[in-house]
């Protein structure tokens, strides 16, 4: 869609990971381009979560390499990923329901003034409004507790937080799993917008319809290996499903 910015942002090569005697990742390789949504698909146990954990630093891979902007990077801890500009929006969103929207956006990174570490609420609110505006997200007033928001709005807050924290790559784990139709559409619009603004997005989902709605390229894992990496335009849902379940053998385009 956005052919203007199709530089490689993240390149994963030959990731390998063993949990004891179990090989979770055999050979996972794929590329995420800036300004694009890359859907990461696979059946349960295919290695999606392990791959994400490796990129997010939650559980580093045993071998293989990760390149960000063409440079090989070492991601050993979550903090490494964060400082490189990789943010993961987890399925459970990691929001504090009792705190307001603005407090959640800046959680752990509050703007404060010395010497008493006083919260600079007015500054934070201003910046929050700016980010929410660029994302075209409609939310009630910024001190509304997150508990009072709908599932889609909560998802939007989690995404806005990732954007606010100077991110290049946003990893989203099943963002629409618990949402209704209208809210799903809103979140998918947000995902598309993120890519439109130049972010790289990895979207993990089971919903084939979502994939064909927003993804630019599709990566399928099976038994810890990349078995498909293709542009969406060249694919049909049946081909992808076949590839996920393994009922159909690979159809080129893979590493």
């Amino acid at each position: 869609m956005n052919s203007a910015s199709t530089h490689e942002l993240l390149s994963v090569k030959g990731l390998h990971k063993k949990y004891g005697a179990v090989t979770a990742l055999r050979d996972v390789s794929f590329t995420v381009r800036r300004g694009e949504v890359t859907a990461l698909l696979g059946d349960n146990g295919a290695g999606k979560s392990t791959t994400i954990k490796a990129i997010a630093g939650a559980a580093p891979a045993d071998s293989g390499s990760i390149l960000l902007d063409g440079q090989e990077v070492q991601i050993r801890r979550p903090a490494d990923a964060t400082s490189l500009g990789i943010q993961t929006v987890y399925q459970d969103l990691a929001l504090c329901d009792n705190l307001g929207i603005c407090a959640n956006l800046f959680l752990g990174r509050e703007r404060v003034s010395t010497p008493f570490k006083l919260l600079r609420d007015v500054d934070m609110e201003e910046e929050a409004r700016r980010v929410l505006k660029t994302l075209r997200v409609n939310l009630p007033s910024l001190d509304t507790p997150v508990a009072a928001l709908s599932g889609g709005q909560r998802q939007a807050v989690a995404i806005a937080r990732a954007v606010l924290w100077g991110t290049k790559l946003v990893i989203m784990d099943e963002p629409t799993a618990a949402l209704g139709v209208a809210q799903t559409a809103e979140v998918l619009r947000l995902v598309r917008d993120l890519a439109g603004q130049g972010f790289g997005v990895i979207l993990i989902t089971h919903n084939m319809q979502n994939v064909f709605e927003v993804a630019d390229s599709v990566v399928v894992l099976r038994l810890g290996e990349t078995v498909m990496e293709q542009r969406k335009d060249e694919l049909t849902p049946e081909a992808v499903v076949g590839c996920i379940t393994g009922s159909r053998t690979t159809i080129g385009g893979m590493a």
Partner: protein
Amino acid sequence: MSTNAVNTMTTTEIQSPLHRWVQKLMHSTDLGMMPVIAALIAIWIVFEFLNPHFLTPRNLSNLSAQIVVTGTLALAETFVILLGMIDLSIGWSSVVAASVFSVGTVFLNLPVWPCVFLGIGASVLLGFLQGLLVSRIGVPSFVVSLGGAMIAEGLVLAMLTQHGGSVPLSDNLSTAVGTLNVPPAWSWGISLVLFAAFAIVMLMRHADRRKRGAGEAHTIVIAKLAFMLAVVVIGVGLLCAYQGIPVLLMIFLAALFFCAFLTKSMRYGRHLYAVGGNAEAARRSGINVRFIQLSAFTIAGALVGLGGLLDAARLGVASATIGDGDVLLNAVAAAVIGGTSLFGGRGSVYGAFFGALVIASITNGMNLVGAPSSVRFGVEGFILLIAITLDTVLRQRRMRSGRA
């Protein structure tokens, strides 16, 4: 706290303000101070009706000193409850502080101020050690503080039994704190200067928000300030109509405002609420959850020590029998009645003030009316049950809406 900034909810039905307010109330998941203030007004009306001496300056002055110990301990408990935990040791720990102070001043003839710090220090240490067990090892706070309470009781008996279980205080400081009032002129001066400082800060923040195209209307801010000024003037006026603000109350209010500053304006408070609301989310956001837990127990310890010393000053004696009484129960009840949720993450230090005022009002009013303790306990228990039921209902409502 309600910035009615650009409210861009997708629902655009037009409703009257009153209708909207009722709707908001019906679906609200956090009522803040509203229930406790409503309860307070109801209690005051009932007692004033039963005995016209209730709302006299003299009785209100007594009442204001009676809230201090319960209030200070409730303040301590609020820090722990905000984490979704409980500290059952605060009753006995407060007596430890009083015992250390009394033994130091009366039998060891130490100067007063070092004894103040030793007494509070003892409670701080107790809080710190319990906090270590809770935050590092993950032992449930309920059990840790139950053990802590027993150890504290042991310490008190070790210190006071040889002196007959109670030590009358004779130093000037505790006598002054326990009995004196700040003279009316000073009471007015101090409270008006503090209010002016507060108002200036509020107005500056408001101006800053407005400059950046957000914030509430001027009239709302002015109305809020005018309301607060009215409360201050009426409160100080009533107390000054008797003998001025009791020193005990001054100390409690200082502790209250300090805690409010800590929990509402400083980053520490934001993190405290975050850990209480969702510890895992707080941890993933880079907040040091263990430090927050440890520090909350330690701060609670300091407030418990202060509460113990204030209690001893008020009674003029450090006594081992105090810990047995309803000190702990009153403090927990005050915090909960004040709207602080036992599930963690919700509530406010001001709840400790209002909750203590409810408890003290019932005790004071029942005494005035000449009702037996049985009735007093019954009424207090009833109000506590209402408060905790409300808390639970609101929580269930949040759980439902959270998954919508």
